């Protein structure tokens, strides 16, 4: 056990170093970076969204230094990004959806938010490795990840009506009644999602827990700023297909022949 732990520690330290180097040197030559190995980043599946984590978050959306996250989109004249983040994957886990969305929306910036430290580091290393491997095409420059508590600090990151899509893929079900406030979709949090979404923007939800699906549907149905999108719409939407297939959870559920419940909602005018 201790041997395995030290191996994990060594691995994490080595990755930490290369992460620091890679983050600062944008087009570093000839450094071969391998994709990270998930087993070194394992962590408890839950993180309490109510506790005071040591989180870094900007004081307001303008104070956010996005250049660090999307170095390929920094305008050399202003030192700022030439566009804003438009797509957010809330609770992005190991980043499967981000990686698959990247080539589908090459002109848009996509951000994953994850509260678990090690999982966030894994996604970060994964994105850095992918960027390095595709530096001739500049692919994967449009995705990034931050460790954060989206339930508490979403408005610190995004302006009103900044986002066009928000994903909630296989969120923590928090089965117990008294834990329901810890769910990522609640009547009160939906107002905050409606604030950062533009009119016509879409909330995507997918889960393998039918109870949770019903919960999310009932809260979204009741919220005056959201309107459910039809089955036909879901069938033709490229993101729904990606969401079904590409997340780690999605693959796991598929392996176990489990059900996947999808519900998508459009942000409507007040």
């Amino acid at each position, binding site marked *: 056990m201790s041997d395995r732990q030290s191996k994990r520690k060594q691995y994490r330290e080595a990755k930490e170093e290369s992460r620091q180097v890679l983050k600062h040197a944008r087009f570093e030559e000839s450094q071969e970076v391998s994709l990270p190995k998930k087993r070194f980043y394992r962590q408890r599946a839950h993180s309490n969204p109510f506790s005071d984590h040591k989180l870094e978050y900007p004081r307001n959306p303008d104070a956010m230094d996005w250049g660090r996250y999307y170095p390929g989109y920094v305008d050399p004249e202003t030192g700022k990004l030439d566009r804003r983040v438009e797509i957010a994957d809330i609770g992005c886990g190991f980043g499967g959806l981000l990686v698959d969305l990247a080539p589908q929306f090459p002109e848009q910036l996509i951000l994953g938010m994850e509260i678990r430290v090690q999982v966030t580091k894994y996604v970060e290393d994964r994105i850095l490795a992918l960027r390095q491997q595709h530096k001739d095409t500049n692919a994967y420059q449009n995705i990034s990840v931050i460790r954060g508590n989206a339930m*508490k600090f979403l408005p610190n990151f995004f302006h009103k009506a900044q986002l066009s899509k928000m994903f909630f893929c296989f969120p923590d079900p928090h089965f117990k009644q008294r834990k329901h406030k810890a769910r990522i979709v609640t009547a*009160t949090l939906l107002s905050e999602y409606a604030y950062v979404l533009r009119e016509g923007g879409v909330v995507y939800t997918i889960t393998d827990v039918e109870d949770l699906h019903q919960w999310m549907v009932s809260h979204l149905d009741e919220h005056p700023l959201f309107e459910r999108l039809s089955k036909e719409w879901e069938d033709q939407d490229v993101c729904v297909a990606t969401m079904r297939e590409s997340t780690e959870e999605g693959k796991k559920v598929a392996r176990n022949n489990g059900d996947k419940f999808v519900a998508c909602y459009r942000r409507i005018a007040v």
Partner: protein
Amino acid sequence: MKHPFQKVLLNSDASLLFAAAGNKVYVFSGPESWKLVDSWVDTVDPNYSLIKEYEARIQRYEQEVKESGSTDHRPPKVPTPGAGAPAKICYIRDIQLSRNEKYLILTTDTDKAVVVFEIIDGHLKEVKRQPLPKRTCSITTSLDDTKILVGDKFGDVYSVDTLDPEIVSEKDLVPVLGHVSMLTSVLNIGNGSGKEFVITTDRDEHIRISQFPKSYVIENWLFEHEEFISSIVAPQWCDNKVLISAGGDKFICSWNWQEGSLVDKFDYSADIEPFLTAENLAPSRFQNEEGDLMEYAVSQLIQVPKLNKLVVLFDRLAAFFVVSVSADGKLALDKSVSVSSTIICGAANNNRLILSVKGDENCLLEYNLENWEHKELTEVYGCNDVEWNEKGDLFASFSVNQLRKRSEH
């Protein structure tokens, strides 16, 4: 020893003084000298929630017995807190007047309820008592006084009908808005052209502006604070434009809340320095190596419309500041006044300022805001008959500084 007043409140012409000590509220009429008119004590059992849970269980049990004739379960036991259980702290948390000053609204700890009283010549007539799911923090009323908005420690805001006698079951109460952080204040304000908004602040530096009653529509957030926010006020003389906020930061913010812009930021750290004592040292766990790290926080902002000024109270400090606020929201320190003992809370109106301070006797002071002279309100404090066993550190629950975040992982 008597329990000091943890909340005081004056009506607009300062002819009525409401003061809460522990679980009791007193009404005094003035203005020449304060005379006790009425009092009300919260008599609900401090174990209210335990009893309720027991009742629910016994009901379920009886249902089971009725359906199946017999059951393998034994009847549920009456829950009783063990000998080592911490003492129940049951306070009147917040007291407010409706805008028309016809009603007094307060919140209790026992059943976590909002209690509404009609005020008839200074006497309190209980109108309704609505229990809520979580312990409450702050109350405000809608501009037309028909709704009471209550913020709780769970981050949710509930809207309670002021006069409708129907009591809603706790299970059926749905919050009208919510933060994922403890709420510290709730305030309804109008924009001067017929639109109403509800402003909520929390322990995570957030000030949120939502429409009212469509509180699911968030208008804006006001970002500048770096620590918790404890108090907000909308000065009456600023034409519905200005909001002032303060808390764990070394500064007080002034906002044009309708535009969402910061108007002024008044850093008081140098001004407070001379008044700091050992009481303001940071707790030992969070202290620096030299052991001289001071922590201070604004505990209350009180507007004094007659002077176009604010009285600013601080956590565990034997002094208060008077800050002038211009019509467009510029802040300037007018004076600092040192007091005999640390201030717990205060209220102001007309040209009176009432302060409740910590001490052995005569814990209520009245300042004349024209000449800043003060007297001890011995006759008022003498009416206080709430005993306080100092062993239980009841005051801990009034230390605003405890809202400070101490993130560890």
